[in-house]
Protein backbone atom coordinates (compact mmCIF):
# COMPACT_ATOMS: atom_id res chain seq x y z
CA UNK A 1 0.00 0.00 0.00
CA UNK A 2 1.42 3.35 -0.77
CA UNK A 3 2.28 5.88 1.89
CA UNK A 4 -0.22 8.56 0.90
CA UNK A 5 -3.14 6.19 1.36
CA UNK A 6 -2.03 4.99 4.76
CA UNK A 7 -1.33 8.46 6.11
CA UNK A 8 -4.83 9.99 5.89
CA UNK A 9 -6.36 6.87 7.43
CA UNK A 10 -3.95 7.05 10.33
CA UNK A 11 -4.39 10.83 10.59
CA UNK A 12 -8.16 10.39 10.68
CA UNK A 13 -7.88 7.81 13.48
CA UNK A 14 -5.66 10.07 15.57
CA UNK A 15 -7.85 13.08 14.91
CA UNK A 16 -10.95 11.22 15.97
CA UNK A 17 -9.53 10.51 19.39
CA UNK A 18 -9.43 14.14 20.56
CA UNK A 19 -13.10 14.49 19.61
CA UNK A 20 -13.94 11.47 21.74
CA UNK A 21 -11.88 12.94 24.55
CA UNK A 22 -13.63 16.26 24.19
CA UNK A 23 -17.04 14.61 24.33
CA UNK A 24 -15.95 12.94 27.57
CA UNK A 25 -14.70 16.25 28.91
CA UNK A 26 -17.99 17.94 28.03
CA UNK A 27 -19.96 15.28 29.89
CA UNK A 28 -17.65 15.55 32.91
CA UNK A 29 -17.87 19.35 33.03
CA UNK A 30 -21.63 19.09 32.61
CA UNK A 31 -21.91 16.72 35.57
CA UNK A 32 -19.69 18.94 37.72
CA UNK A 33 -21.62 22.05 36.66
CA UNK A 34 -24.78 20.49 38.06
CA UNK A 35 -23.11 20.63 41.48
CA UNK A 36 -21.65 24.12 41.08
CA UNK A 37 -23.63 27.09 42.34
CA UNK A 38 -24.52 29.11 45.39
CA UNK A 39 -26.68 26.56 47.18
CA UNK A 40 -26.22 25.56 49.92
CA UNK A 41 -23.04 27.66 50.01
CA UNK A 42 -20.93 29.30 47.28
CA UNK A 43 -19.14 26.02 46.51
CA UNK A 44 -19.80 22.55 45.20
CA UNK A 45 -22.92 20.76 46.27
CA UNK A 46 -21.74 17.46 47.78
CA UNK A 47 -23.25 14.22 46.54
CA UNK A 48 -24.27 13.28 50.10
CA UNK A 49 -26.18 16.50 50.43
CA UNK A 50 -27.79 15.93 47.03
CA UNK A 51 -28.89 12.45 48.14
CA UNK A 52 -30.49 13.69 51.36
CA UNK A 53 -31.67 17.23 50.64
CA UNK A 54 -34.95 17.41 48.82
CA UNK A 55 -34.53 21.11 48.17
CA UNK A 56 -31.16 20.44 46.51
CA UNK A 57 -32.71 17.71 44.34
CA UNK A 58 -35.47 20.04 43.20
CA UNK A 59 -32.93 22.77 42.50
CA UNK A 60 -30.74 20.50 40.40
CA UNK A 61 -33.64 18.91 38.54
CA UNK A 62 -35.87 21.94 37.97
CA UNK A 63 -33.37 24.74 37.58
CA UNK A 64 -29.82 23.62 36.93
CA UNK A 65 -30.47 20.71 34.57
CA UNK A 66 -32.64 22.57 32.01
CA UNK A 67 -30.39 25.59 32.30
CA UNK A 68 -27.18 23.66 31.68
CA UNK A 69 -28.71 21.72 28.79
CA UNK A 70 -29.73 25.04 27.28
CA UNK A 71 -26.21 26.39 27.82
CA UNK A 72 -24.76 23.43 25.91
CA UNK A 73 -27.28 23.85 23.08
CA UNK A 74 -26.56 27.57 23.03
CA UNK A 75 -22.81 27.09 22.71
CA UNK A 76 -23.17 24.33 20.13
CA UNK A 77 -25.67 26.26 18.03
CA UNK A 78 -23.77 29.54 17.97
CA UNK A 79 -20.46 27.81 17.19
CA UNK A 80 -21.93 25.61 14.47
CA UNK A 81 -23.83 28.55 12.99
CA UNK A 82 -20.69 30.66 13.10
CA UNK A 83 -18.72 28.00 11.27
CA UNK A 84 -21.48 27.53 8.68
CA UNK A 85 -21.67 31.28 8.01
CA UNK A 86 -17.89 31.56 7.78
CA UNK A 87 -17.66 28.68 5.33
CA UNK A 88 -20.62 29.62 3.18
CA UNK A 89 -19.58 33.22 2.85
CA UNK A 90 -15.92 32.22 2.46
CA UNK A 91 -15.25 34.76 5.17
CA UNK A 92 -13.52 33.90 8.45
CA UNK A 93 -14.59 37.20 10.00
CA UNK A 94 -18.32 36.66 10.28
CA UNK A 95 -20.56 35.24 12.99
CA UNK A 96 -24.30 35.45 13.69
CA UNK A 97 -23.79 38.63 15.73
CA UNK A 98 -21.92 40.30 12.86
CA UNK A 99 -24.46 39.67 10.13
CA UNK A 100 -27.58 41.13 11.69
CA UNK A 101 -28.83 37.66 12.71
CA UNK A 102 -28.65 38.10 16.50
CA UNK A 103 -29.73 41.75 16.43
CA UNK A 104 -32.56 40.87 14.08
CA UNK A 105 -33.67 38.11 16.44
CA UNK A 106 -33.53 40.52 19.40
CA UNK A 107 -35.58 43.09 17.49
CA UNK A 108 -38.16 40.48 16.50
CA UNK A 109 -38.46 39.29 20.10
CA UNK A 110 -38.76 42.83 21.51
CA UNK A 111 -41.34 43.70 18.85
CA UNK A 112 -43.31 40.62 19.78
CA UNK A 113 -43.12 41.35 23.53
CA UNK A 114 -44.52 44.86 23.04
CA UNK A 115 -47.04 44.48 20.25
CA UNK A 116 -47.99 40.83 19.93
CA UNK A 117 -47.63 39.30 23.37
CA UNK A 118 -44.96 37.22 25.05
CA UNK A 119 -46.09 33.67 24.29
CA UNK A 120 -42.94 31.59 23.77
CA UNK A 121 -43.80 30.40 20.26
CA UNK A 122 -44.66 33.94 19.19
CA UNK A 123 -41.44 35.47 20.54
CA UNK A 124 -39.39 32.69 18.94
CA UNK A 125 -41.20 32.88 15.65
CA UNK A 126 -40.68 36.61 15.42
CA UNK A 127 -37.04 36.21 16.49
CA UNK A 128 -36.48 33.66 13.72
CA UNK A 129 -38.27 35.78 11.13
CA UNK A 130 -36.23 38.89 11.86
CA UNK A 131 -33.02 36.85 12.12
CA UNK A 132 -33.59 35.67 8.54
CA UNK A 133 -34.48 39.20 7.47
CA UNK A 134 -31.27 40.52 9.06
CA UNK A 135 -29.11 37.97 7.25
CA UNK A 136 -30.87 38.49 3.92
CA UNK A 137 -30.58 42.24 4.22
CA UNK A 138 -26.86 42.05 5.09
CA UNK A 139 -26.24 39.74 2.16
CA UNK A 140 -28.10 41.90 -0.37
CA UNK A 141 -26.37 45.01 0.90
CA UNK A 142 -22.95 43.33 0.63
CA UNK A 143 -23.71 42.25 -2.95
CA UNK A 144 -24.64 45.79 -3.89
CA UNK A 145 -21.95 47.66 -1.95
CA UNK A 146 -19.48 49.49 -4.12
CA UNK A 147 -16.37 49.45 -1.96
CA UNK A 148 -13.77 46.95 -0.86
CA UNK A 149 -13.58 43.19 -1.34
CA UNK A 150 -16.23 40.64 -0.43
CA UNK A 151 -14.94 40.00 3.10
CA UNK A 152 -14.95 43.69 3.98
CA UNK A 153 -18.28 44.39 2.29
CA UNK A 154 -20.03 41.63 4.18
CA UNK A 155 -18.61 42.76 7.52
CA UNK A 156 -19.57 46.39 6.83
CA UNK A 157 -23.05 45.43 5.64
CA UNK A 158 -23.50 43.33 8.78
CA UNK A 159 -22.44 46.24 10.99
CA UNK A 160 -24.89 48.57 9.23
CA UNK A 161 -27.82 46.14 9.46
CA UNK A 162 -27.01 45.30 13.09
CA UNK A 163 -26.94 49.02 13.89
CA UNK A 164 -30.35 49.50 12.26
CA UNK A 165 -31.84 46.71 14.33
CA UNK A 166 -30.12 47.99 17.49
CA UNK A 167 -31.67 51.41 16.84
CA UNK A 168 -35.00 49.66 16.39
CA UNK A 169 -34.55 47.83 19.70
CA UNK A 170 -33.69 51.18 21.31
CA UNK A 171 -36.89 52.71 19.95
CA UNK A 172 -38.91 49.73 21.19
CA UNK A 173 -37.37 50.10 24.67
CA UNK A 174 -38.36 53.76 24.64
CA UNK A 175 -42.03 52.96 24.01
CA UNK A 176 -42.08 49.84 26.19
CA UNK A 177 -43.99 49.67 29.44
CA UNK A 178 -41.21 50.22 32.01
CA UNK A 179 -42.74 47.88 34.58
CA UNK A 180 -43.43 44.77 32.54
CA UNK A 181 -42.02 44.97 29.04
CA UNK A 182 -38.80 46.89 29.56
CA UNK A 183 -37.13 44.39 31.93
CA UNK A 184 -37.91 41.60 29.51
CA UNK A 185 -36.35 43.49 26.61
CA UNK A 186 -33.33 44.54 28.63
CA UNK A 187 -32.70 40.87 29.34
CA UNK A 188 -32.28 40.36 25.61
CA UNK A 189 -29.50 42.83 25.31
CA UNK A 190 -27.45 41.33 28.12
CA UNK A 191 -28.10 37.68 27.55
CA UNK A 192 -28.62 35.26 30.37
CA UNK A 193 -29.92 31.84 31.24
CA UNK A 194 -31.33 32.45 34.70
CA UNK A 195 -34.98 32.13 33.66
CA UNK A 196 -34.69 28.87 31.73
CA UNK A 197 -37.28 26.24 32.61
CA UNK A 198 -38.03 22.79 31.23
CA UNK A 199 -40.91 24.32 29.26
CA UNK A 200 -38.59 26.76 27.50
CA UNK A 201 -36.05 24.07 26.79
CA UNK A 202 -38.78 21.86 25.35
CA UNK A 203 -39.98 24.58 22.99
CA UNK A 204 -36.54 25.18 21.49
CA UNK A 205 -35.02 21.70 21.68
CA UNK A 206 -36.73 20.16 18.61
CA UNK A 207 -35.73 23.03 16.31
CA UNK A 208 -32.20 23.26 17.69
CA UNK A 209 -31.51 19.52 17.59
CA UNK A 210 -32.88 19.20 14.07
CA UNK A 211 -30.81 22.16 12.88
CA UNK A 212 -27.65 20.81 14.56
CA UNK A 213 -28.29 17.42 12.96
CA UNK A 214 -28.68 18.97 9.50
CA UNK A 215 -25.45 20.95 9.89
CA UNK A 216 -23.62 17.89 11.22
CA UNK A 217 -24.77 15.69 8.33
CA UNK A 218 -23.83 18.34 5.80
CA UNK A 219 -20.37 18.88 7.26
CA UNK A 220 -18.35 17.51 4.34
CA UNK A 221 -20.56 19.38 1.88
CA UNK A 222 -19.66 22.59 3.74
CA UNK A 223 -16.14 22.26 2.33
CA UNK A 224 -17.65 22.19 -1.16
CA UNK A 225 -19.94 25.12 -0.38
CA UNK A 226 -16.98 27.23 0.69
CA UNK A 227 -15.63 27.13 -2.90
CA UNK A 228 -16.44 29.52 -5.73
CA UNK A 229 -19.89 28.97 -7.26
CA UNK A 230 -18.59 27.75 -10.62
CA UNK A 231 -16.18 25.33 -8.99
CA UNK A 232 -18.84 24.00 -6.63
CA UNK A 233 -21.18 23.53 -9.59
CA UNK A 234 -18.50 21.67 -11.56
CA UNK A 235 -18.26 19.26 -8.62
CA UNK A 236 -21.93 18.35 -8.94
CA UNK A 237 -23.13 20.63 -6.14
CA UNK A 238 -26.25 22.81 -6.34
CA UNK A 239 -24.61 25.75 -4.57
CA UNK A 240 -27.75 27.90 -4.22
CA UNK A 241 -30.06 25.23 -2.82
CA UNK A 242 -27.52 23.56 -0.54
CA UNK A 243 -26.35 26.89 0.88
CA UNK A 244 -29.98 27.87 1.53
CA UNK A 245 -30.52 24.59 3.40
CA UNK A 246 -27.53 24.90 5.76
CA UNK A 247 -28.11 28.63 6.21
CA UNK A 248 -31.70 27.93 7.24
CA UNK A 249 -30.40 25.41 9.77
CA UNK A 250 -27.78 27.87 11.07
CA UNK A 251 -30.17 30.80 11.39
CA UNK A 252 -32.96 28.60 12.76
CA UNK A 253 -30.71 27.24 15.52
CA UNK A 254 -29.38 30.71 16.34
CA UNK A 255 -32.83 32.30 16.47
CA UNK A 256 -34.17 29.51 18.67
CA UNK A 257 -31.41 29.63 21.28
CA UNK A 258 -31.19 33.42 21.21
CA UNK A 259 -34.95 33.62 21.78
CA UNK A 260 -34.49 32.10 25.26
CA UNK A 261 -30.96 33.23 26.11
CA UNK A 262 -30.87 36.75 24.73
CA UNK A 263 -27.87 38.18 22.94
CA UNK A 264 -24.77 36.08 23.48
CA UNK A 265 -21.92 37.27 21.33
CA UNK A 266 -18.48 36.20 20.14
CA UNK A 267 -18.90 32.44 20.59
CA UNK A 268 -19.76 32.09 16.91
CA UNK A 269 -16.65 33.94 15.83
CA UNK A 270 -14.01 32.63 18.18
CA UNK A 271 -14.91 28.96 18.59
CA UNK A 272 -14.79 28.07 14.85
CA UNK A 273 -11.32 29.64 14.64
CA UNK A 274 -10.17 27.65 17.62
CA UNK A 275 -11.66 24.45 16.17
CA UNK A 276 -9.97 24.99 12.80
CA UNK A 277 -6.67 25.73 14.45
CA UNK A 278 -6.77 22.56 16.54
CA UNK A 279 -8.40 20.18 14.05
CA UNK A 280 -7.69 21.60 10.58
CA UNK A 281 -9.98 23.36 8.11
CA UNK A 282 -11.87 20.26 6.91
CA UNK A 283 -15.35 20.63 8.40
CA UNK A 284 -15.63 16.85 8.79
CA UNK A 285 -13.59 17.33 11.97
CA UNK A 286 -13.77 21.09 12.50
CA UNK A 287 -17.57 21.28 12.74
CA UNK A 288 -18.07 18.61 15.42
CA UNK A 289 -15.05 20.07 17.22
CA UNK A 290 -16.61 23.54 17.10
CA UNK A 291 -19.86 22.14 18.52
CA UNK A 292 -18.04 20.46 21.41
CA UNK A 293 -15.79 23.43 22.16
CA UNK A 294 -18.80 25.76 21.91
CA UNK A 295 -20.83 23.65 24.34
CA UNK A 296 -17.92 23.50 26.76
CA UNK A 297 -17.25 27.23 26.47
CA UNK A 298 -20.90 28.19 27.12
CA UNK A 299 -21.08 25.78 30.04
CA UNK A 300 -17.96 27.22 31.68
CA UNK A 301 -19.11 30.81 31.06
CA UNK A 302 -22.46 29.98 32.65
CA UNK A 303 -20.72 28.38 35.64
CA UNK A 304 -18.74 31.58 36.07
CA UNK A 305 -21.88 33.66 35.59
CA UNK A 306 -23.60 31.78 38.41
CA UNK A 307 -20.77 31.69 40.90
CA UNK A 308 -18.33 34.58 40.52
CA UNK A 309 -20.50 37.17 42.22
CA UNK A 310 -23.32 36.95 44.73
CA UNK A 311 -25.67 38.27 42.06
CA UNK A 312 -25.72 36.67 38.63
CA UNK A 313 -23.58 38.06 35.80
CA UNK A 314 -25.31 38.03 32.39
CA UNK A 315 -23.59 35.33 30.31
CA UNK A 316 -23.41 37.64 27.27
CA UNK A 317 -21.00 39.89 29.15
CA UNK A 318 -18.71 36.94 29.97
CA UNK A 319 -18.72 35.40 26.49
CA UNK A 320 -17.96 38.78 24.93
CA UNK A 321 -15.16 39.47 27.41
CA UNK A 322 -13.49 36.06 27.13
CA UNK A 323 -14.24 35.76 23.39
CA UNK A 324 -12.77 39.15 22.55
CA UNK A 325 -9.64 38.41 24.60
CA UNK A 326 -9.28 35.10 22.77
CA UNK A 327 -9.70 36.78 19.43
CA UNK A 328 -7.06 39.39 20.28
CA UNK A 329 -4.70 36.61 21.34
CA UNK A 330 -5.30 34.73 18.07
CA UNK A 331 -4.81 37.90 16.03
CA UNK A 332 -1.37 38.51 17.47
CA UNK A 333 -0.17 34.90 17.61
CA UNK A 334 -1.06 33.86 14.07
CA UNK A 335 -2.51 35.77 11.18
CA UNK A 336 -6.14 35.04 10.56
CA UNK A 337 -6.16 34.34 6.91
CA UNK A 338 -8.46 36.46 4.78
CA UNK A 339 -8.63 36.24 1.02
CA UNK A 340 -10.59 38.13 -1.62
Amino acid at each position, binding site marked *: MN*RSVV*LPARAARIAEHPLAWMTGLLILVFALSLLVGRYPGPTLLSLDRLASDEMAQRLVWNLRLPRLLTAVLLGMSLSAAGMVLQMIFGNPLVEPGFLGVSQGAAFGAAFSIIFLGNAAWLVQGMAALFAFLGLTFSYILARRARLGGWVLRLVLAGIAVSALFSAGVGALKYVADPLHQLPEITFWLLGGLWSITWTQLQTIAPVVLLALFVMYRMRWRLNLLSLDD*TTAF*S*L*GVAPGQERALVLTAAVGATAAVVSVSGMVGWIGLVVPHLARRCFG*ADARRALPAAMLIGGLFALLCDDAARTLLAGEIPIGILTSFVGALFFIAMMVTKNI*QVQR
Partner: protein
Amino acid sequence: MSTPLLAFDRVHFGYQPDGRMVLRDLSLEIQPGTVTAILGPNGAGKTTLLHLALGWLSPRTGKVFLNGCPLGSYSRRALGQWMALVPQSERIPFEYSVLEYVLLGRAPHLAPLEMPGVADCRIAAQALESVGLDRLDGRAITTLSGGERQLVLLARALAQQPRLLLLDEPTAHLDLGNKARLLGLLQGLAAQGVTMLLTTHEPQVAAALASRLVLMREGQVRHHGPLEQVLTSEHLSATYGVPVRVIQVDGKQVVWL
Protein backbone atom coordinates in the same frame (compact mmCIF):
# COMPACT_ATOMS: atom_id res chain seq x y z
CA MET B 1 -18.24 9.71 -37.63
CA SER B 2 -18.94 8.83 -34.00
CA THR B 3 -21.23 10.86 -31.75
CA PRO B 4 -19.36 13.97 -30.62
CA LEU B 5 -18.65 14.02 -26.89
CA LEU B 6 -19.63 17.68 -26.76
CA ALA B 7 -21.55 19.65 -29.34
CA PHE B 8 -22.68 23.28 -29.52
CA ASP B 9 -25.54 23.78 -31.93
CA ARG B 10 -26.17 27.39 -33.02
CA VAL B 11 -25.66 28.74 -29.52
CA HIS B 12 -26.38 32.36 -28.69
CA PHE B 13 -25.53 33.69 -25.25
CA GLY B 14 -25.49 37.05 -23.45
CA TYR B 15 -25.13 37.82 -19.73
CA GLN B 16 -27.75 40.60 -19.66
CA PRO B 17 -31.21 39.91 -21.10
CA ASP B 18 -31.10 42.93 -23.40
CA GLY B 19 -27.33 43.44 -23.46
CA ARG B 20 -24.54 42.51 -25.85
CA MET B 21 -24.35 38.93 -27.11
CA VAL B 22 -21.15 37.27 -25.88
CA LEU B 23 -21.52 34.23 -28.15
CA ARG B 24 -23.28 34.43 -31.49
CA ASP B 25 -24.46 31.50 -33.58
CA LEU B 26 -21.72 29.25 -32.29
CA SER B 27 -21.54 25.67 -33.49
CA LEU B 28 -18.72 23.35 -32.51
CA GLU B 29 -18.17 19.62 -32.11
CA ILE B 30 -15.61 17.92 -29.88
CA GLN B 31 -14.85 14.31 -30.76
CA PRO B 32 -13.90 11.85 -28.02
CA GLY B 33 -10.18 11.36 -27.54
CA THR B 34 -9.21 14.70 -29.05
CA VAL B 35 -7.55 17.72 -27.49
CA THR B 36 -9.06 20.98 -28.69
CA ALA B 37 -7.54 24.36 -27.89
CA ILE B 38 -9.47 27.61 -28.14
CA LEU B 39 -7.45 30.71 -28.99
CA GLY B 40 -8.79 34.21 -29.25
CA PRO B 41 -8.39 37.76 -28.01
CA ASN B 42 -9.59 38.90 -24.57
CA GLY B 43 -13.38 39.06 -24.46
CA ALA B 44 -13.80 36.66 -27.38
CA GLY B 45 -16.05 34.46 -25.20
CA LYS B 46 -13.64 31.60 -24.47
CA THR B 47 -14.39 31.23 -20.75
CA THR B 48 -18.11 31.74 -21.40
CA LEU B 49 -17.94 28.83 -23.82
CA LEU B 50 -16.39 26.60 -21.14
CA HIS B 51 -19.08 27.63 -18.64
CA LEU B 52 -21.77 26.77 -21.17
CA ALA B 53 -20.14 23.38 -21.74
CA LEU B 54 -20.18 22.85 -17.99
CA GLY B 55 -23.88 23.62 -17.75
CA TRP B 56 -23.22 26.50 -15.35
CA LEU B 57 -24.61 28.89 -17.98
CA SER B 58 -27.48 28.08 -20.33
CA PRO B 59 -27.66 29.30 -23.92
CA ARG B 60 -30.31 31.86 -24.74
CA THR B 61 -31.04 30.03 -27.98
CA GLY B 62 -29.45 26.93 -29.42
CA LYS B 63 -28.42 23.80 -27.57
CA VAL B 64 -25.43 22.10 -26.02
CA PHE B 65 -25.23 18.30 -26.27
CA LEU B 66 -23.15 15.95 -24.18
CA ASN B 67 -22.64 12.55 -25.76
CA GLY B 68 -25.66 13.16 -27.97
CA CYS B 69 -28.09 14.20 -25.21
CA PRO B 70 -29.01 17.78 -24.27
CA LEU B 71 -27.10 19.03 -21.21
CA GLY B 72 -30.39 19.74 -19.45
CA SER B 73 -31.24 16.03 -19.39
CA TYR B 74 -28.29 15.28 -17.08
CA SER B 75 -28.43 15.68 -13.29
CA ARG B 76 -25.78 17.87 -11.72
CA ARG B 77 -24.03 14.88 -10.25
CA ALA B 78 -24.02 13.16 -13.62
CA LEU B 79 -22.50 16.28 -15.19
CA GLY B 80 -19.82 16.25 -12.49
CA GLN B 81 -19.03 12.64 -13.38
CA TRP B 82 -18.75 13.44 -17.09
CA MET B 83 -16.84 16.69 -16.92
CA ALA B 84 -14.30 18.36 -14.67
CA LEU B 85 -13.18 21.97 -14.75
CA VAL B 86 -9.70 23.24 -13.98
CA PRO B 87 -10.30 26.95 -13.39
CA GLN B 88 -7.71 29.58 -14.18
CA SER B 89 -7.33 30.39 -10.52
CA GLU B 90 -9.41 29.76 -7.46
CA ARG B 91 -10.07 31.51 -4.18
CA ILE B 92 -9.17 29.12 -1.37
CA PRO B 93 -10.91 30.46 1.72
CA PHE B 94 -9.52 28.14 4.40
CA GLU B 95 -6.33 26.24 5.08
CA TYR B 96 -7.42 22.86 3.74
CA SER B 97 -4.72 20.25 3.42
CA VAL B 98 -3.77 19.32 -0.13
CA LEU B 99 -5.29 15.85 0.11
CA GLU B 100 -8.54 17.16 1.63
CA TYR B 101 -8.80 19.57 -1.27
CA VAL B 102 -8.21 16.92 -3.92
CA LEU B 103 -10.75 14.68 -2.16
CA LEU B 104 -13.45 17.27 -2.95
CA GLY B 105 -13.20 15.98 -6.53
CA ARG B 106 -15.00 12.83 -5.39
CA ALA B 107 -18.20 14.80 -4.67
CA PRO B 108 -20.04 13.92 -7.92
CA HIS B 109 -19.55 10.21 -7.19
CA LEU B 110 -21.12 10.44 -3.72
CA ALA B 111 -24.77 10.58 -2.68
CA PRO B 112 -25.91 13.94 -1.28
CA LEU B 113 -25.10 13.20 2.38
CA GLU B 114 -22.44 10.55 1.83
CA MET B 115 -18.90 11.18 3.02
CA PRO B 116 -15.84 10.07 1.09
CA GLY B 117 -14.64 6.61 2.06
CA VAL B 118 -11.38 4.71 1.86
CA ALA B 119 -11.76 4.07 -1.89
CA ASP B 120 -12.27 7.79 -2.49
CA CYS B 121 -9.19 8.62 -0.42
CA ARG B 122 -7.21 6.17 -2.52
CA ILE B 123 -8.40 7.71 -5.79
CA ALA B 124 -7.58 11.21 -4.50
CA ALA B 125 -4.13 10.05 -3.37
CA GLN B 126 -3.51 8.50 -6.80
CA ALA B 127 -4.60 11.70 -8.53
CA LEU B 128 -2.18 13.63 -6.35
CA GLU B 129 0.56 11.15 -7.14
CA SER B 130 -0.08 11.47 -10.87
CA VAL B 131 0.66 15.20 -10.72
CA GLY B 132 3.75 14.50 -8.62
CA LEU B 133 2.56 16.19 -5.43
CA ASP B 134 1.96 13.16 -3.20
CA ARG B 135 4.79 14.28 -0.91
CA LEU B 136 2.74 17.44 -0.10
CA ASP B 137 -0.52 15.64 0.83
CA GLY B 138 -0.62 16.95 4.41
CA ARG B 139 0.51 20.51 3.67
CA ALA B 140 -1.94 23.42 3.89
CA ILE B 141 -2.84 24.34 0.34
CA THR B 142 -2.51 28.04 1.16
CA THR B 143 1.23 27.55 1.71
CA LEU B 144 1.83 26.21 -1.82
CA SER B 145 3.28 28.19 -4.71
CA GLY B 146 1.08 29.24 -7.63
CA GLY B 147 2.39 26.43 -9.82
CA GLU B 148 1.79 23.79 -7.17
CA ARG B 149 -1.74 25.09 -6.58
CA GLN B 150 -2.52 24.77 -10.30
CA LEU B 151 -1.34 21.15 -10.13
CA VAL B 152 -3.60 20.56 -7.10
CA LEU B 153 -6.58 21.89 -9.08
CA LEU B 154 -5.67 19.48 -11.88
CA ALA B 155 -5.40 16.63 -9.37
CA ARG B 156 -8.86 17.46 -8.02
CA ALA B 157 -10.24 17.36 -11.57
CA LEU B 158 -8.53 14.00 -12.13
CA ALA B 159 -10.07 12.67 -8.90
CA GLN B 160 -13.43 13.31 -10.57
CA GLN B 161 -12.43 10.69 -13.16
CA PRO B 162 -14.10 12.71 -15.91
CA ARG B 163 -14.46 11.79 -19.55
CA LEU B 164 -14.01 15.40 -20.57
CA LEU B 165 -11.52 17.78 -19.01
CA LEU B 166 -12.23 21.50 -19.36
CA LEU B 167 -9.20 23.70 -18.72
CA ASP B 168 -9.46 27.48 -18.48
CA GLU B 169 -6.06 28.97 -19.32
CA PRO B 170 -4.20 26.25 -17.45
CA THR B 171 -0.75 27.79 -17.89
CA ALA B 172 -1.61 31.41 -17.04
CA HIS B 173 0.54 32.74 -14.15
CA LEU B 174 2.98 29.81 -14.36
CA ASP B 175 6.73 30.20 -14.77
CA LEU B 176 8.57 28.37 -17.52
CA GLY B 177 9.43 25.34 -15.42
CA ASN B 178 5.92 24.86 -14.07
CA LYS B 179 4.48 25.47 -17.53
CA ALA B 180 6.65 22.71 -18.99
CA ARG B 181 5.72 20.40 -16.10
CA LEU B 182 1.98 20.99 -16.54
CA LEU B 183 2.21 20.62 -20.32
CA GLY B 184 4.05 17.33 -19.86
CA LEU B 185 1.30 16.06 -17.57
CA LEU B 186 -1.46 17.13 -19.96
CA GLN B 187 0.37 15.53 -22.89
CA GLY B 188 0.50 12.32 -20.88
CA LEU B 189 -3.26 12.49 -20.27
CA ALA B 190 -3.87 13.19 -23.96
CA ALA B 191 -1.82 10.14 -24.85
CA GLN B 192 -4.09 8.10 -22.55
CA GLY B 193 -7.06 9.27 -24.61
CA VAL B 194 -8.55 11.84 -22.18
CA THR B 195 -10.69 14.31 -24.12
CA MET B 196 -9.73 17.91 -23.37
CA LEU B 197 -11.07 21.31 -24.22
CA LEU B 198 -8.84 24.16 -23.15
CA THR B 199 -8.71 27.90 -23.57
CA THR B 200 -5.39 29.66 -23.77
CA HIS B 201 -3.75 32.93 -24.73
CA GLU B 202 -0.58 31.19 -25.81
CA PRO B 203 -0.46 29.70 -29.31
CA GLN B 204 2.59 27.72 -28.20
CA VAL B 205 0.59 25.93 -25.51
CA ALA B 206 -2.04 25.08 -28.10
CA ALA B 207 0.62 23.85 -30.52
CA ALA B 208 2.24 21.67 -27.86
CA LEU B 209 -0.98 20.02 -26.74
CA ALA B 210 -3.83 20.18 -29.16
CA SER B 211 -4.70 18.20 -32.23
CA ARG B 212 -7.49 20.60 -33.12
CA LEU B 213 -7.65 24.35 -32.89
CA VAL B 214 -10.55 26.79 -32.64
CA LEU B 215 -9.97 30.48 -33.34
CA MET B 216 -12.61 32.74 -31.78
CA ARG B 217 -13.27 36.41 -32.20
CA GLU B 218 -16.21 38.48 -30.99
CA GLY B 219 -18.22 35.51 -29.85
CA GLN B 220 -17.93 33.53 -33.04
CA VAL B 221 -15.83 30.62 -34.24
CA ARG B 222 -13.72 32.01 -37.08
CA HIS B 223 -11.69 28.89 -37.85
CA HIS B 224 -11.88 25.34 -36.63
CA GLY B 225 -9.94 22.31 -37.76
CA PRO B 226 -6.73 20.33 -37.44
CA LEU B 227 -4.04 22.39 -35.72
CA GLU B 228 -1.59 22.45 -38.62
CA GLN B 229 -4.25 23.85 -40.94
CA VAL B 230 -5.65 26.48 -38.57
CA LEU B 231 -2.46 27.74 -36.93
CA THR B 232 -1.30 29.93 -39.82
CA SER B 233 0.01 33.49 -40.11
CA GLU B 234 -3.04 34.53 -42.05
CA HIS B 235 -5.61 33.16 -39.57
CA LEU B 236 -3.83 34.42 -36.45
CA SER B 237 -3.27 37.88 -37.95
CA ALA B 238 -6.96 38.14 -38.83
CA THR B 239 -8.07 36.86 -35.41
CA TYR B 240 -5.90 39.17 -33.32
CA GLY B 241 -5.80 42.13 -35.70
CA VAL B 242 -2.00 42.38 -35.58
CA PRO B 243 0.62 40.93 -37.91
CA VAL B 244 1.68 37.49 -36.62
CA ARG B 245 4.14 35.08 -38.29
CA VAL B 246 3.97 31.32 -37.95
CA ILE B 247 7.23 29.61 -38.82
CA GLN B 248 8.34 25.99 -38.88
CA VAL B 249 11.03 24.85 -36.47
CA ASP B 250 11.91 21.13 -36.44
CA GLY B 251 8.65 20.40 -38.21
CA LYS B 252 6.57 22.23 -35.57
CA GLN B 253 4.70 25.47 -35.89
CA VAL B 254 6.11 28.35 -33.87
CA VAL B 255 4.42 31.70 -33.49
CA TRP B 256 6.62 34.74 -34.02
CA LEU B 257 5.46 38.26 -33.23
